[in-house]
């Protein structure tokens, strides 16, 4: 078969990827036409990143499937293989070295040389050519740290097309760009397409898809739902194709309704990087969920409330009283607690014992005149371990040695020991097995009976629908919906989550 005439650049047949306990991709088929911009869509956790990593050589697929690229069988076992074949991935987190120049970054793995020395004249002239292809007017010698995020993004693209790149994969390239910079990026993607480059484009912004993509494919729950031309496909059609994830575990639906008493109110919260003020309230005995796409400023919002990051303006009322929260210390004082997304990095002291971690937020409770009563500390830790059913041989065990689910329970125990009234969870069940998840849901409900208020950020829509009284939907930093339990509906929530990305 004539290579050039083939309309297909990449063909994926029957590719499956299993992680322990999870099927991330299920016999996925995909065809990407040469010279097209192909959009890849799907809800959080639908399998987009997994698919990209398989194409980019980051993951090996399960045996059974196959790929062809540029007319030849394609099975990259490392990102290097993929680059050699002509596949370049530009990730959302940029991988540039800040103190090196633009030119050095672009040609890092193939610096032109003259003898043992770098041929800077050649390096700069070649860089200049590449920069003009991506529409950047920059001095090739200027260090990357001085560039804007948009410029860095374009430098990444220049780097990607510096070698013979046939397929460019852009993962959420506009997530941190202004709309003007995004427009510029689209122009460049179109120009590169006209030069014959094929692009796979991942984005939450459905509007962008209509601007630059020719085809779109939708993943749902690890399965490829549809591949179709962009023209003739409406946004509601896209959204309804994305929903429909199966319930993968049961949720212990609580019997107790939330009280009417407001325990926390947030008014007009503003923080850097968000254009919209955030206002909402949380009731006593209520689980309030925050849904939204990854990157919709959910984590940033709860961190700003908690004082972990600086906020620009806005007020927080706890139990009707205004509190001035400038640091986590102020927040804890006011009865708040934050269980962060990153347990190991921000929630636990891994090389300390379970007992030490449990008392970390309130060591004064087991000490007199600043001296810790180790016996009382162990007793408290044992009581909470039993209450939360933490599986550990002893409370003197280092937290490092516990499983993910048990570690999460230790974080929870820490805040129960502190007796926080408002618990803010950021992705409480990420990376935890199904059994432990269920136990954590049960725990949440027992906490409600004690009159606490719970705020949960989760990327798992089913989880939120299963356990929350109410769900706020975030869309690019704006609350687009406040839904009561009776109104929960996947399709509805998802269209709210996309709302602010469309118009």
């Amino acid at each position: 078969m004539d290579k050039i005439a083939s309309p297909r650049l990449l063909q994926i047949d029957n590719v499956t990827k299993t992680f322990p306990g999870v099927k991330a991709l299920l016999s996925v088929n995909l065809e990407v036409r040469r010279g097209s911009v192909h959009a890849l869509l799907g809800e959080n956790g639908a399998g987009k990143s997994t698919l990209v990593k398989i194409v980019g050589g980051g993951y090996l697929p399960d045996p059974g499937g196959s790929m062809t690229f540029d007319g030849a069988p394609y099975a990259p076992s490392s990102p290097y293989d993929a680059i050699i074949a002509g596949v370049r991935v530009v990730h959302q987190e940029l991988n540039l070295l800040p103190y090196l120049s633009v030119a050095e970054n672009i040609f890092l793995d193939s610096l032109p040389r003259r003898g043992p020395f770098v041929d800077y004249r050649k390096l700069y002239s070649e860089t200049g050519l590449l920069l003009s292809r991506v529409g950047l007017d920059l001095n090739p010698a200027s260090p990357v740290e001085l560039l804007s995020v948009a410029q860095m993004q374009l430098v990444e693209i220049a780097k990607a097309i510096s070698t013979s790149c046939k397929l460019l994969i852009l993962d959420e390239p506009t997530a941190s760009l202004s709309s003007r910079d995004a427009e510029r990026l689209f122009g460049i993607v179109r120009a590169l397409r006209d030069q014959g480059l094929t692009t796979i484009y991942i984005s939450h912004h459905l509007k962008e898809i209509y601007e630059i993509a020719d085809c779109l494919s939708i993943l749902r729950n690890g399965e490829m739902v549809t591949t179709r031309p962009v023209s003739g496909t409406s946004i509601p059609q896209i959204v309804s194709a994305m929903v429909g994830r199966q319930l993968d575990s049961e949720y212990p639906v609580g019997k107790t309704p939330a009280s009417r008493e407001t325990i926390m109110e947030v008014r007009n919260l503003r923080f850097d990087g968000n254009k919209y003020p955030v206002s909402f309230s949380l009731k006593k005995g209520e689980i309030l969920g925050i849904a939204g796409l990854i990157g919709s400023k959910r984590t940033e919002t709860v961190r700003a409330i908690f004082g972990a990051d600086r906020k620009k303006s806005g007020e927080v009322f706890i139990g009707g009283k205004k509190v001035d929260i400038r640091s986590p210390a102020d927040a804890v004082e006011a009865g708040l607690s934050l269980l962060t997304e990153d347990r190991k990095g921000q929630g636990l002291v891994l090389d300390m014992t379970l007992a030490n971690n449990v008392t970390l937020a309130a060591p004064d409770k087991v000490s007199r005149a600043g001296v810790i009563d180790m016996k009382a500390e162990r007793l408290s830790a044992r009581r909470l371990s039993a209450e939360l059913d933490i599986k550990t041989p002893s409370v003197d065990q280092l937290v490092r040695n516990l499983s993910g689910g048990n570690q999460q329970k230790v974080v929870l125990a820490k805040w129960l020991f502190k007796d926080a009234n408002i618990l803010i969870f950021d992705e409480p069940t990420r990376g935890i097995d199904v059994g432990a998840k269920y136990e954590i849901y049960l725990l949440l409900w027992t906490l409600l009976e004690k009159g606490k208020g719970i705020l949960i950020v989760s990327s798992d829509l089913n989880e939120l629908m299963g356990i929350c009284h109410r769900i706020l939907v975030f869309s690019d930093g704006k609350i687009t919906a406040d839904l009561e339990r009776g109104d929960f509906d996947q399709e509805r929530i998802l269209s709210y989550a996309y709302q602010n990305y469309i118009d």
Partner: protein
Amino acid sequence: MQGKNIQSRKWLHLLLNEAGIGLIFVVLCGLFAAFVPNFASLNNISNIFTQISINTVISTGMTFVILLGGIDLSVGSVLSLCTILAGMTITNKALPFPFALVGAVGASILCGMICGFFNGFVAEKWKVHSFVVTLGMLNIARGAALQISGSRTIFSFPAAFNAFGTMAVGGVPVIFVMAVTGVSLGHFVLKKTVFGRMIYAIGNNEEAVRLCGHNTRKYKISAFVLCGACVGVAAVMYMLRLNIASPILGAGFELSAIAAVVIGGTSMSGGKGSLVGTLIGAAIIGVLNNGLLLIGMKDFARQMVTGLIIVAAVVLDTYRVRLSRLFS
């Protein structure tokens, strides 16, 4: 079964963490005692006690700072500045002896604490690494000491003061008693108090402690102040031992202190270590210096051997960490 397992692991941990370095110390002492005639004499042992006392007290303060992942390079210069201020106070003829004594001790400790506060405050407020701030303080304190003293050494302290310095309690020199008291107090603070717990926790994971609602800055600055206070005490001990106050003394003390802490198994990146280790670390350096001198080794060679031992201790430490990972 489980319980027994934990128990044996605990012992193994203890062996690897504290006793490992203790074993090296015992072997070292045994070798010197066997092959160097005068090493094990009461007189010499008492000498070693005296020689390691000052470094032990400085290292105690240094341990707190290093446990937080910081470092204090200014201890030697600050010690010299402390002796100048204390020396000027105690030789002030206008003050009756008891007042002069209390004033001198107070001035020394206060001076150390102020310098420590400066180090900690600047490092925390502007997020400058303590290496740089304390490098600056090293020069500031040295310059201040020279300026205030007119670059002159102060001596002729009151006789009672000098006499106290040479006293011994049951054969143990009084300044060693002071050093051991200091280490014990520090050990108690680290292992039993909320303050000590926070030092370890911050050294391990500062962000987690901050998100628990603790003011981590306050603890970090306090560690530098505490280190400064230790230097102030060490300055008084120096005056008791050598009966002089001088603007040029103390050069290189920071390196001996850091060496003691590191040989003692405290991790330079913070979070791990103990004062028991530091005490043994200081003792190893002292025994080495003393023993090698008795053998007749020249100054330069002695320095080389001491240096090699420091490197060897740190290399051994990496194996220790790997071993204890393996068994935990």
